[in-house]
């Protein structure tokens, strides 16, 4: 199978397929008062910036009394999927997993 540029890039970083990451990441978030929507806009991870494209699913979970927002989204090129966790007790972002769309 021919690998996409993103996959080659990820493999150079030692990341393959869908992988648990669990690293702190920098995230720019926006809020639209007209649409009343808040969502991540840009993710900065391992010296690379990714503009957020489509948000696949957003849900919340409780860990004890702490609310976490989970965003599952792809970059604007639609080649890389991220799972982000926003801890509302300290507003820290954690990158939980990435996926390049490949199974191998």
């Amino acid at each position: 199978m021919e690998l996409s540029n993103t996959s080659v890039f990820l493999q150079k970083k030692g990341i393959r397929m869908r992988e648990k990451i669990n690293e702190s990441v920098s995230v720019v978030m926006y809020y639209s008062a007209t649409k009343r929507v808040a969502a991540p806009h840009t993710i900065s991870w391992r010296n690379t910036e990714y503009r957020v494209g489509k948000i696949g699913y957003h849900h919340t979970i409780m860990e004890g009394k702490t609310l976490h927002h989970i965003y599952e989204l792809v970059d604007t090129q639609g080649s890389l999927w991220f799972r982000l966790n926003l801890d509302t007790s300290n507003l820290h972002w954690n990158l939980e997993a990435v996926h390049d769309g490949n199974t191998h």
Partner: protein
Amino acid sequence: MEIPINHNAPQVMHIDLNSCFAIIEQQANPLLRHRPVAVAAYDSPGGMVIASSYEAKALGIKLGVNVREARLLSPDVHVLTPDPEKYFNAHKRFKEVLLKYTNEVTPKSVDEFVIDFRGSRVLQAGRSLEDIGMQIKQDIKNALGEYVTVNIGIGPNRFLAKLAAGLNKPDGMDRIDGNNLRDIYAGLELTDLPGINVRYEARLNIAGIYTPLQFLDAPVIMLRKRVFKSIVGFYWHLRLRGHEVDMIKFGRKSFGQQYALAKKTRDKQELSRLLMKLCEKTGRRLRGQDYIASGIHLWLGFENRMHWAKGKRVRGDIYATQDIYLHAQKLLNEVPIPARVTNIGVTVFNLRPANPQQLGLFDDSRLDAKSLARAADAVNDRYGEFTVVPASMANMQDVIIKRVAFGSTNDL
């Protein structure tokens, strides 16, 4: 007495989310869309597939195959482990959509709902159920995502609505009523009917019934006396004709937890530790819904496909985790272990409400144990599961992970 077919206008809707867990994963990760996806209990070779996408089903990857077989059927299948919190969230959003139409919404499982529109304002306003169904489909896309599709069945009773929902998957909408009932039955097998499994089919076959139409036309006396040998035969007679017999709401009878061991073992100490965690999870649910039990059941499955199970009623209350563990451990001590254990499950039964409490003259210490259990639950509610645990459960946070109950929505 033969009952005629119900020709009233259908007012029951059955909605089920297509390939629920797999489609939610495809919604969450657009890179998985239009690809074979299997959600498996574990992503190790022996892990069982619990849901698969339509693309995976087309390749033969269905419920119950294991990950090794799934990968043999399609090397490109994406195998994911379940994300219960996400599925519960989807279930809640799904329900919220339906509650906009009527309060008579009954969850049948994490991905199925029945809506009873009898007397609802939307019908009184003159809208057809098909029109409402189309709007529900769109509302679900708005609430859950554009990739999510549902099947809708419309019928005069729950049975026919469920049957209609299964006629055209995915994203179908069908109606069964008194006018097309016979035509629909003519195109189906007995096991296509919800509630008719191969054993019921065999019973019907013995009585000379081989098709749904023959089942429909069978005299009620024959169904009662020869086929089902009980009132169940009369219920089937009504159900097949579109009369409602399935509106009974069953109360809570038991709480239980089970676990498929990632590492099979015959080590009783290890089993005892796993059992403690199952008891803690069972106890949390029991106390969370304010019940006290007085019966306990333990079962084990072995790799040689043998099973062992034993239940007993106990004197006194089962409320705190330690109560459950004490009785479960006693049962575990009785188990002969012929092979490595693959599954273990514990259930408490004989439930009664925890409040009001019946206080005995001499049970000060029991009251303390209950207060302690409630206090520990309060800490765990605030700081997360397993923050406070009995000493024997130390360092077991990830040993038994949260699972999705398919059939039950009692704890959602």
